[in-house]
C-alpha cells in the first residue's frame, strides 16, 4: 500500500496548495447545464446504492463505482 499512500499524499498536497492561479476555462455562468438534475451523477442515491449492491453480489469485481466506494462481502 506504500505506493498508493504516496500517490494520495501527492494529490493531497496538490489539493492543499490550492492551485488558485489556474484560470477556470468554464466560467461560473457557463455551468448552468451542470445544475440541471439530468446531469447529476447520482440523482437517486438510494436506488443507485441498491443496484450497485446487486452488481457486487453477482460479480467477482468490486470497487471504483463512482461516488459509492466499493468492497465486497460476497462470500
Amino acid at each position, binding site marked *: 500500500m506504500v505506493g498508493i499512500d504516496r500517490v494520495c499524499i501527492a494529490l493531497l498536497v496538490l489539493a492543499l496548495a490550492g492551485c488558485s492561479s489556474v484560470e477556470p476555462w468554464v466560467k461560473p455562468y457557463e455551468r448552468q447545464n451542470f445544475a440541471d438534475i439530468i446531469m447529476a*451523477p447520482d440523482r437517486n442515491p438510494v436506488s443507485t446504492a441498491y443496484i450497485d449492491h446487486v452488481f457486487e453480489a453477482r460479480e467477482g469485481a468490486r470497487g471504483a463505482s463512482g461516488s459509492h466506494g466499493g468492497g465486497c462481502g460476497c462470500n
Partner: protein
Amino acid sequence: MQRLGPSAFILFSLTAALPAMGAVLPDDRADVMYHRYDGGGVTIDGPSLLVRKKFAEKYSVSANYYVDMVSSASIDVVTTASPYKEQRTQGSFGFDMLNGKTQYSLSYTNSDENDYTANTASFDLSQDMFGDLTTVSFGYSQGWDEVRKRGDSAFSESVDRRNYRLGLSQIVTPQLMLGFNYEVVTDEGYLNNPYRSVRYLDSSSANGYSYQPEVYPGTRTSNAIALNARYYLKYRAAVHGEYRYYTDTWGIDANMVEVGYTQPWRKQWIFEFDYRWYDQSAADFYSDLFPRADAQNFLARDKELSTFTSHMLSLGATYELPPLGWKFIERSTVNLFYDRVLYDYSDFRDVRKGGVPGTEPLYQFNADVFRIFVSGWF
C-alpha cells in the same frame, strides 16, 4: 449466506452522501424504496429508507435503514443444500461537514443477519479546486465482519476489510463532465462461504462426482479503475458512459462498459435508458469439476468466481408530483426502475440437467430487478 453481500452494500451506503462535485452538502431529502430481485431461484426484497438533513448550512446528517428478505432456492442451494429464508437488516449513520471548499464525511454502518454481522467505519474527504472545475476525493473504510454458520454454534470466523478510494471529477466544457475513480480493496480472514461446496470426479459415486467444502485463500487484494463521462445535449437531454477495469490477486480480470441516455419529457417526467455489459475471467482456483478430492490447496466452485458475461437493460421513469400542499415538503417524485439482467456462464455447468460429469449444459439465468421509490425534498 446466499445473499447480496453486506459489506459491499455498507460501503455503498456509507459514501453515497458524497456529492460528485464536492463543496455542496447533499440536499435535505427523504426516500422510501421497495426493492425486489428475482432470478436464478433467488428472491430478495425489502424496504430502504434514507433521510438527510442539513443544519447551520455547514453540517449534514443522514440515516439509512435497509432490509433484505431472502428466499433462496438457487442452483447452489438446490444441488448441495436445502432452500432457506433469512433476513438481513442494516442501519447506517453519516455525518458531513463543509469547510470552505473541503467536505469531510464520517459514517458507521452495522449489518446483521443470523449468520453474518458486519460493522464498517468510513472517512471521506473531497476538495474543490481550479475554480471549482475539479474535485478530488479520498476515502478510507475499515470493516470488521463476523461469519457464523447455521447449525454449528461453535463456528465463528472473522474478516478484516480495508478500502482505499481516490476520485477525480472534472468539468471539461459547459456540456461535458469527466470522472475518474480508483479503488484498492484488501480482505483478510475467512473469505469463503461456509455452506458452499466444490465438486470433483468420483468413480465410486453413482452420478460420477462428489462434493467437498470450498477452501479459499485467506487474503485478497483488488484494484479497480473507472472512467466516466456525462454530456449535456442542447435539446435538454444527457448521455453518459462508463468503463471499468478490474484485477485482483485471485486471478479475476473484469471489464465493464455502461452507456445511458436521460430524457426529460414535459415538466413532470424524466425517462432513463441504460445498457450495461460485464465480463470476467475465473479465479485461478475455480473449477466446475476438479479431477479428484483435494486436487489443490484452494478450491472454489462459486459461480461469481467463474468466467461469465452479463448484459443488463434498464428502464427508469421519474414523475414529479403536483404540490402536495404540505408545508414541509418542497417537492416530491415517484420513481420506477426496472432492470433485466442475463447471466451467461462459460465454465459453470447446470448439474441439475444430468449427463456425463463435465459435459452438462452451461448455466445461464435471467434476473428481474425492480426499484420503486418515493422521494421528498424539504
